[in-house]
């Protein structure tokens, strides 16, 4: 149906303009659903179409959970969008399936990669594959920790002075902020991790492992590194959190939800975009860096992820060029994206803008961003994540960590081996 309509559109356009000297192209653009950003998108696109009368944009927003599925089925049907965004954790599969087109610097409007990178202050690591870049960032997000000032004050603490700098000192502080019932069950948690939102949980162990100078997944060799000393430290910490200290766990309400409801003293799964939500919920907050290990080798905060705008390699060349032009135009409006939707793109005009300067937390986020590492990018991400989450379940049950990690490592490696074998059979 879509193909038919596209055909009709193109035929109609050609008939309308006769043999147009400028190739008129339609760029189909898909973005994920982030309500504050949508009106900004529409304004940018309207502007773009005015400045580029030979390019028409067909803009679609797909809602959250179905977005990845819909992208996949569309690509499979050969009707994938020409320009689309998605998060860095998921891009590897597109790359492995040869869907992504490498940056066309000419169409994008930069002399070369170096010129492009001077405009941005980073954020490209997530879209670099085998040395080449395959997209531009529309949002680079790192999380930090937030404290609910009211609850801290009530417990006689001050986030600015009492915030734990190390993971080791966190349980004691959290305990002071925790209220328990007669059975020791926490009815108001002091601090908790984001156990139940799938995509968010793995940031915790990933960050901890990165701080110890290692990584959960060896991206270049498609190997898991879960049954290692750093990994064991991270997961043991999380197990103790739920089982030994009983400070939290997956059986309680999600940490983001409770924090916004004023029922959690501190948590670490909000980015700078969380601040408007906290303000709307009436939370008086202080932003704090994520704890590090006392003997941490790397001073990184929580892992970062980014949303990249990518071009479909299977689209017609003229359409691809139009798509890169649109990507350039779009990212040039980074200031509006930040001030209107809280989406941070690390560009000078953003950090110089009034909105940025007026945001008290912005410099802090930027400094943490510069020190942080990208969350591992894995092919077969969904299954790998699932495996790790199920391992987390077992740990929370109290199972022996040695067995759990060994099995987790085996299973993740099985998935990655499979993907590597499949990638090797792909014909260019």
């Amino acid at each position, binding site marked *: 149906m879509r193909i038919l309509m596209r055909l009709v559109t193109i035929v109609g356009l050609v008939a309308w303009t006769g043999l147009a000297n400028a190739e008129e192209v339609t760029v189909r653009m898909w973005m994920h659903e982030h309500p504050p950003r949508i009106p900004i998108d529409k304004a940018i696109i309207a502007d773009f179409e005015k400045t580029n009368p030979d390019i028409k944009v067909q803009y679609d927003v797909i809602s959250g959970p179905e977005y990845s599925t819909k992208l*996949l089925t569309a*690509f499979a049907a050969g009707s994938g969008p020409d320009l689309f965004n998605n998060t860095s954790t998921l891009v590897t599969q597109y790359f492995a399936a040869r869907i992504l087109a490498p940056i066309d610097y000419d169409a994008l409007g930069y002399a070369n990669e170096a010129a492009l990178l001077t405009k941005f202050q980073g954020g490209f690591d997530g879209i670099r594959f085998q040395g080449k870049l395959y997209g531009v960032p529309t949002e680079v997000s790192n999380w930090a920790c937030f404290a609910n000032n009211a609850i801290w004050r009530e417990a006689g603490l001050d986030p600015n002075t009492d915030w734990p700098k190390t993971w080791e000192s966190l349980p004691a502080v959290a305990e002071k902020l925790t209220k328990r019932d007669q*059975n020791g069950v926490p009815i108001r948690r002091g601090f908790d991790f984001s156990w139940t939102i799938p995509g968010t949980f793995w940031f915790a162990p990933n960050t901890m492992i990165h701080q110890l100078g290692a990584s959960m997944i060896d991206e270049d060799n498609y190997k898991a590194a879960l049954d290692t000393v750093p990994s064991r430290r991270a997961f043991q910490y999380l197990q103790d959190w739920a089982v030994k200290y009983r400070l939290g766990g*997956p059986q309680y309400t999600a940490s983001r939800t409770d924090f916004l409801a004023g029922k959690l003293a501190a948590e670490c799964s909000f980015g700078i975009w969380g601040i408007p939500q906290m303000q709307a919920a009436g939370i008086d907050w202080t932003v704090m860096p994520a704890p590090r290990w006392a003997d941490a080798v790397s001073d990184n905060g929580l892992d970062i992820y980014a949303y990249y705008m990518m071009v479909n390699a299977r689209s017609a060349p003229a359409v691809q060029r139009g798509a890169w032009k649109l990507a350039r135009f779009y990212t040039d409006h980074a200031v509006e994206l930040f001030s209107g939707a809280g989406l941070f793109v690390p560009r000078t005009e953003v950090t110089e803008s009034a909105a940025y300067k007026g945001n008290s937390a912005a410099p802090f986020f930027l400094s943490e961003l510069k020190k942080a590492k990208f969350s591992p990018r894995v092919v077969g991400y969904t299954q790998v994540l699932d495996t790790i989450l199920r391992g987390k*379940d077992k740990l929370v049950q109290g199972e022996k960590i040695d067995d759990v990690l060994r099995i987790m490592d085996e299973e993740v490696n099985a998935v990655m081996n499979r993907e590597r074998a499949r990638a090797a059979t792909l014909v260019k």
Partner: protein
Amino acid sequence: MTVSIVRRAGSVRFHYKWWGLIFVLPVVTFFAAFNLFPTLFGLWLSFTDYDLLNPPVWVGLDNFANLLADRLFLQAFGNTLVFVLGATVPVWVLSLLAALVFDQAFRGRDILKAAFFLPVLPPVVVIAVVWRLLLHSNGVLTSLTGGWWGVTEIRWLADATLAPFSMIAVHDWAIIPFFMMIWLAGLAAIPPEFREAAAIDGAGPVRTFWHVDLPQLRSTAVLVAALSSINAFQTFALQYVLPTDPGGPANSTLVLGLLVLKYGFQYFRMGDAAAVSVVMFALIMAVTLIQLWFNRHA
């Protein structure tokens, strides 16, 4: 006169039987396209590796061989057996008992029967949503049950050992009234003379039940067993919606039906999904055949 009618009747009879074929054609074509073809296609898929983005690659029996070593599959297989057991035996017994209670007239029977029947009305997803709320670790059900001896947290759905039982309990709660109806229909079909004869012989209620009702209920009993087991194998919505993560904590409530969805639409391993569904089909067939055999020879 008669001769021409016979000849006419003869020619009409030759024609009209073909109408039968025409009448069944829509249905048959539909099933061929949307049922038989996909079944065969699915069987073919189970011998391939297909990730939707690239064309299918023939791998022969590899998918099935891999399943034997696949922890996820083995776990789902075991969970399915446990679930089916819990969704058939208790249901069979309890729905029969319920039918026996409601079989005879008593004060308030109609309204109580209607109240008892309520779980059948909502769609399965509604049941899953409502029970998910009720089964919060420190929620309503915990306070109603554990509140007696001061327990404030029961991890109905969050504990890997408790979750399968919670799942079975919710499923059984939802279908027992339905099977009670079937038993009631069976009981109603028992000729009252049989019972009267037993009463005259001085048999008490238990003996009457054992020697009169039960033999008469044989076909109903078989039906309940068959329907409840087929239904149990195919349940999906409950396992998908009731826990926070489909599959439950540590995949303790992951059943084969759910695994098909996981492999097919979360991991996009369509060949593996098809292989799991083939195994599922074989399992259902086996159980059904065993039941038939049992029925014939028992």
